[in-house]
């Protein structure tokens, strides 16, 4: 990966409030990069610093090897799709898309051709003459995208672009944005609070909490090996059980897990670095299995009771109460043919495997 953007020691304070506390990251060329975190974690501020709308309190932002300090937004090779889309209401669709072409030196016909191309790319071919204020939310978003991409920026910045759309349209735009990014091959930086969206679209994700990057990794790595309980909890669903851990022969970790008992895991199942003492074990719902009648256990088995059943059609989520476990465990099961949906209150055998556990020392 060739780095295009490098952030080093970036901090930002608004008055007494420190919004960013030393951001270190490198974002590659042609990468789909997401800044993911709950609201107030500083992700939008970071995006606005990259765009040039905010100046960092300290630290450096390099773009294509150039320090961006003192370079205003209109001189940066970045373009942004705003959360509100910021489509100019007094202009037509074509005038919106062509807004940034004023100084391109192109003739009117060349501009017209380029605008039509850009509109075609976002699926709005033939919409050029429409008034911008008459567009729907989804169409406005596409205009904002075309308007940014027509300038062929090195980086496209997307500030929660999908949060205002309804679910169906959002899913459609997710795959479309991904397709567009592959097509134009430029770096996309997406700000989102939706972990699913980040997993679906990104090459790499920076999870941010309280102005810091908690983990920067590819989606699979992030999902499988969260470095902290908080990251694991934020990305997808994760069950946590209190556990005590100690090193055995300086190699494997022996865990005493509430409700599951004693087991041994490997060192890389503790991504945060092992510390002797108490902590928590995390396990994903799909890593746990309910053994239905006649099914043979391949891993270890814990006995419990079905406390809650949530039926999703293709999946059923069970909450299993285990004796000795302080919290119920969520288990997701695919609804295969011939597999019954258990009822609340029945006894359940829970199969688990030590290799799917993640240990977080406290």
């Amino acid at each position, binding site marked *: 990966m060739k780095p295009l953007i490098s952030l080093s020691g970036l901090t930002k304070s608004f008055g007494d409030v420190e919004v960013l506390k030393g951001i270190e990251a490198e974002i590659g060329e042609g990468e789909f990069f997401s800044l993911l975190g709950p609201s107030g974690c500083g992700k939008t501020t970071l995006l606005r610093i990259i765009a040039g709308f905010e100046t960092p309190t300290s630290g450096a932002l390099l773009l294509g090897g150039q320090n961006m300090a003192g370079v205003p937004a*209109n001189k940066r090779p970045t373009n942004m799709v705003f959360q*509100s889309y910021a489509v100019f209401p007094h202009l037509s669709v074509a005038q919106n898309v062509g807004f940034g072409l004023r100084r391109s030196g192109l003739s009117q016909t060349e501009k017209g051709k380029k605008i039509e191309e850009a509109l075609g790319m976002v699926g709005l071919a033939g919409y050029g003459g429409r008034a911008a204020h008459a567009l729907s939310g989804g169409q406005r978003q596409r205009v904002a995208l075309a308007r940014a991409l027509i300038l062929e920026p090195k980086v496209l910045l997307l500030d929660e672009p999908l949060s205002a759309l309804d679910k169906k349209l959002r899913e459609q735009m997710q795959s479309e944005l991904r397709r567009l990014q592959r097509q134009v091959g430029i770096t996309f930086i997406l700000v989102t609070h939706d972990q699913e969206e980040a997993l679906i679209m990104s090459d790499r994700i920076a999870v941010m909490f309280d102005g810091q990057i908690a983990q920067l990794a590819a989606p699979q790595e992030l999902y499988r090996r969260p470095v902290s309980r908080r990251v694991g909890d934020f990305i997808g669903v994760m069950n946590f059980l209190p556990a005590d851990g100690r090193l055995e022969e300086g190699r494997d970790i022996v865990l005493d897990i509430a409700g599951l008992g004693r087991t041994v895991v490997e060192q890389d199942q503790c991504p945060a670095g092992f510390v002797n003492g108490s902590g928590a074990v995390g396990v994903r719902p799909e890593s746990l299995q309910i053994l239905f009648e006649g099914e043979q256990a391949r891993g270890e088995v814990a006995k419990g009771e079905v406390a809650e059943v949530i039926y999703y059609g293709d999946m059923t989520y069970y909450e299993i109460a285990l004796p000795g476990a302080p919290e119920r465990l969520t288990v997701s099961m695919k609804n295969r043919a011939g597999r019954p949906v258990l009822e609340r209150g029945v006894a359940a055998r829970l199969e688990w495997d030590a290799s799917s556990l993640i240990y977080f020392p406290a």
Partner: protein
Amino acid sequence: MISWGVFHWKHAPFESPPKLLPQCRKSPLERAGVSHNLGRTTEHVSGDVGLSAGHGLSDAKKGLLLAAPPGLYAVLLLAVPLGAVLLLSFWSQDFLTLDRTFTLKNYREAFTEPLYMLLLGRSLLIAGAVTIATVVLAFPIAYFVSFYVRPERKSLWIFLITIPFWTSYLIRVFLWKVILGYNGVLNSSLQGLGIIEEPLTFILYNANAVVITLAHAFAPFAILPIFVALEKIDRSLLEASRDLGEGKFRTFTRVTLPLAMPGVVAAILIVFIPTIGDYVTPRLVGGPDGLMIANMIQTQFLKLNNAPLGAALAVIAMLSVSLISLGIVLATMRWMKGGK
């Protein structure tokens, strides 16, 4: 304005409380099948006399009911006098009596006598100058308050801008006399500072004084609509313009100004329309060269006892204002549509 008043006046009687209509007797309207809804209301209310008059009326009718009293008021105080003036302008004065035969004599006189056309032309010119001066000066103030004042301080600023209104219009005009006079505040200060030798005379008792005084008087009327239009501009639009490569100046001309235009047009109309008809300011600070058409209308009515000619002049002034205002509105509408 006039047609609006008449519209409500025509409808107002229909909105009288339906419960007062006896159930057995149908109003002429209901018989004609005009007001189906009202008929139902009558039946409904008759069973429950205690219900309020507005209950069960459609929203549109409730709205009319609400607007009826001011509508009536507007008709009485605006449409009726206006009609009277219009009528009067087609009559003529025969020494002490009014000759009520229809004539265009007054209009002929108004258009042929150079003095009247001079006064009308001067009024339009002064009003135009006042409008331009006011809007050009008001815009930066509105812009400053909208873009640079902290949100929690904005209402304070708007409040401060209206302070000149706390005192009477007349007193403000007199104060300008004190400021602009031969031995006034401005002249003595400039002389005291050694900037000028002789007192400036072009600032009082002429058209300049009228423009200065009126521009000050109407400033808040221009600032407020422009401020409101600027407030409504989504700030991310300005960031988007910067993001798309435009600097501060181009962002202003391509985004801020076009979006503020409705407020600017409102300001232009609010200042221009009443300024043409102003007669207090030209009378007090205008001197002989600063008199405007309204002064002549007043003279015709009160001093020369020629109300019909005064009425004709008033109608002509009113039509000029209407046509120019319409022109401004149409021009801006076209500009906004085909705007860049």
